[in-house]
């Protein structure tokens, strides 16, 4: 569109100052008690208040300056009409297609690249904390994406299925009767070596079963009611795990969970271990690299299956359900079954991820399955752009990778002294980032929908038209 740029109005500094003073006043009101006075306990357990005027005025001053600068920035950009990207171009789809291919390729060489640059001892952190950790969340995000992104069912208790998978594997693998039975039937080394590979599908099936079990009663619920009941279910499962000590070990959790073997070859320093078998020098890095590829394959299976499902009648029914449930029913679609399959399949992938998590950690406890995890997975799906696989990947890297990077803040101690604990600020920043990212991209990073079938030309559907579901 040809448009004359409107004459830029002069920046109204008085107005900006007024805004900044107002913001500073609000900040003063908010923080004068919460920051300006600190509650402390003396040695004889007396509560005292410690005034911190310096901190208070620093913060208020920062708010004043910040508000002024933001206002100024907005004022000088006000005249420009934001150039929006043209809606629904096939380009976005191409990026998704080739971007995904390139990214998968990158993932396969990632451990080698890291190994090459950081050496065996430095690489573990990068492969484990960043690679494996992020891939677990990608897989969880893709699993939840089926439920939330495709079927439009808001699930705030997804971590429950993750927990079901993890505990299924942990309990089966450490169960004495099973171990003894297997030892008697096949041989003493069989179960510890193969437990993961046998239990992985079992964990998925059990999680899917729980998905149906929890899904069935909540089918009639809509929107936020569904969200709150799934949250309640998530909490119930966690509380039962905490309290039913005989079953799950309670807060103490389950430890010495067998690690996955390289299809029967364990990763240890013995002669039958992986390193010795393949004539390599023993180092823990092999196990980490192997785990990396296991979760990569698991995640890719999730991606392939969910991409295929989308193009099948069941996947189309999920999306139709998200768009308009009543219309679905008028077309003869059994919405109960459709919702249950979404719950079950989403839960199944959560279960796989859970089993992998237990095997990777070697130890699990209810602490790993708190609501915050569900919230984080949901945030990944929403920030990624509902229904977009690539979006989930980017969001996982940003959120999970970002949180991991914040662990590297220890250098700040050099500036703020040893009493400064950067770990405290990690979650503070994480929370702030969640808010900011939503303000920045409420529709998610990838906000186009790819049609599942086309006649002549595949055109992306702008997210403005895509509904978010009411269930």
């Amino acid at each position, binding site marked *: 569109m040809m448009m004359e740029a409107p004459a830029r109005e002069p920046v109204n500094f008085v107005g900006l100052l007024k805004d900044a003073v107002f913001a500073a006043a609000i900040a003063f*009101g908010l923080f004068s008690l919460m920051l300006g006075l600190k509650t402390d306990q003396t040695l004889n357990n007396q509560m005292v208040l410690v005034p911190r005027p310096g901190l208070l005025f620093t913060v208020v001053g920062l708010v004043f300056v910040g508000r002024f600068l933001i206002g100024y920035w907005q004022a000088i950009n006000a005249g420009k009409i934001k150039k929006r990207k043209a809606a629904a171009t096939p380009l976005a789809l191409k990026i998704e297609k080739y971007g995904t291919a390139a990214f998968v390729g990158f993932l396969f060489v990632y451990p080698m690249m890291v190994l090459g640059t950081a050496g065996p001892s430095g690489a573990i952190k990068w492969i484990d904390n960043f690679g494996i950790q992020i891939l677990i969340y990608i897989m969880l995000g893709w699993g939840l994406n089926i439920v939330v992104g495709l079927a439009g069912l808001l699930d705030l208790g997804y971590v429950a299925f993750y927990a079901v998978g993890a505990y299924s594997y942990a309990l089966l693998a450490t169960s004495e009767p099973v171990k003894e039975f297997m030892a008697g039937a096949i041989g003493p080394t069989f179960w510890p070596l193969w437990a993961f590979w046998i239990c992985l599908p079992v964990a998925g099936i059990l999680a899917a079963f729980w998905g149906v079990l929890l899904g069935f009663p909540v089918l009639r619920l809509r929107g936020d009611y569904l969200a709150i009941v799934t949250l309640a279910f998530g909490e119930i499962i966690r509380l039962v795990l905490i*309290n039913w000590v005989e079953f799950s070990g309670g807060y103490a959790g389950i430890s010495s969970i067998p690690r996955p073997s390289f299809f029967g070859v364990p990763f240890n320093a013995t002669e039958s271990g992986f390193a010795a078998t393949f004539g390599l020098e023993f180092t823990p890095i092999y196990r980490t690299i192997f785990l990396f590829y296991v979760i990569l394959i698991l995640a890719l299976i999730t991606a392939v299956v969910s991409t295929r499902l989308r193009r099948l009648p069941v996947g189309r029914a999920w999306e139709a359900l998200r768009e308009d449930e009543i219309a679905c029913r008028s077309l003869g679609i059994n919405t109960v079954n459709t919702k249950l399959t979404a719950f079950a399949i989403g839960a199944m992938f959560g279960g796989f991820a859970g089993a992998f998590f237990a095997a990777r950690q070697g130890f699990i406890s209810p602490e790993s399955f708190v609501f915050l995890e569900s919230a984080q997975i949901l945030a990944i799906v929403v920030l990624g752009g509902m229904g977009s696989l690539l979006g989930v990947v980017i969001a996982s890297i940003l959120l999970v990778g970002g949180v991991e990077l914040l662990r590297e803040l220890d250098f700040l101690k050099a500036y703020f002294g040893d009493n400064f604990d950067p770990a405290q600020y990690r979650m503070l920043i994480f929370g702030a980032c969640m808010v900011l990212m939503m303000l920045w991209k409420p529709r998610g990073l990838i906000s186009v929908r790819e049609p599942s079938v086309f006649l002549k030309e595949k055109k992306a559907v702008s997210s403005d038209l895509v509904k978010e579901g009411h269930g």
Partner: protein
Amino acid sequence: MEVFVQQLINGVTLGAVYGLIAIGYTMVFGIIGMVNFAHGDVFMISAFVALICFMAVTALAGMTGGAVFLALLVALIVSMIVTSLFSWTIERVAYRKLRGSFRLAPLISAIGMSILLMNFVQVAQGARNKPIPPIMRDTIRLFEKDGFVVAISYKQILIILVTALLLGIFWYVVQKTPLGRAQRACEQDQKMAALLGINVDRTIAVTFIMGAALAAVAGTMFLTYYGVVVFSDGFVPGVKAFTAAVLGGIGSLPGAVLGGMLIGLIETFWSAYFSIDYKDVAAFSILAIVLIFMPQGLLGKPEVEKV
């Protein structure tokens, strides 16, 4: 019987606290259809503000009976003001821009806000439990049997009375005043409400402030009742209060208080008669069961499915 009566009193007191927080959830959900996840943390902040204020006043005026009462009153009022300011700011910063966009965006923003507030308090005030000296310890003995004394404390009487009074006032405001009508109109169709001359932004801001003021009352009472607060105290009471709001029928103020009472009673009785470990499981299970069989909650109006 004695145990039953005593648990009934305790349960109703706890329920009143949940009920007051639940009103904030139900009002915000009622008007913009979002679960304000940060509301539990707003409640926690209100308890902290009350704590700091109480300590400041008693540090100046001493711990005599009159001074304690004064300190409590000041703490309540200041907490209501500061908490309202927090709630207003949260709405302005984290939710207003997302209004009318994607339904999940404000939910995620709220969850982020909740994490932010909780960790802000941890950073600003430390991670330890913050106790206050025991106050208002006097009780009224109701009756005694076989050595078991059934008593109600002044604190409990105060909490129950304040809850009843506030419920009455707020219910009147929402049902009978133009403000309440405007709130209900915004709840159902913001664009149309604006066409009819309603200042939607202001109405929503007022709703957040009202909810926060009630949460501040709950927070102050929580502090005096339990005598301790910690930065993570927002989540569990928050979830339970939201549960209460849903249980009572979202959008209904009496429903929120009723739901709060039920959750409080279930929790206390379950702890007393069964197992304290599973009290939260019981509360959540009841929620699930009620919602499955009565999706509109106890006092909510059933929605006729318009085809």
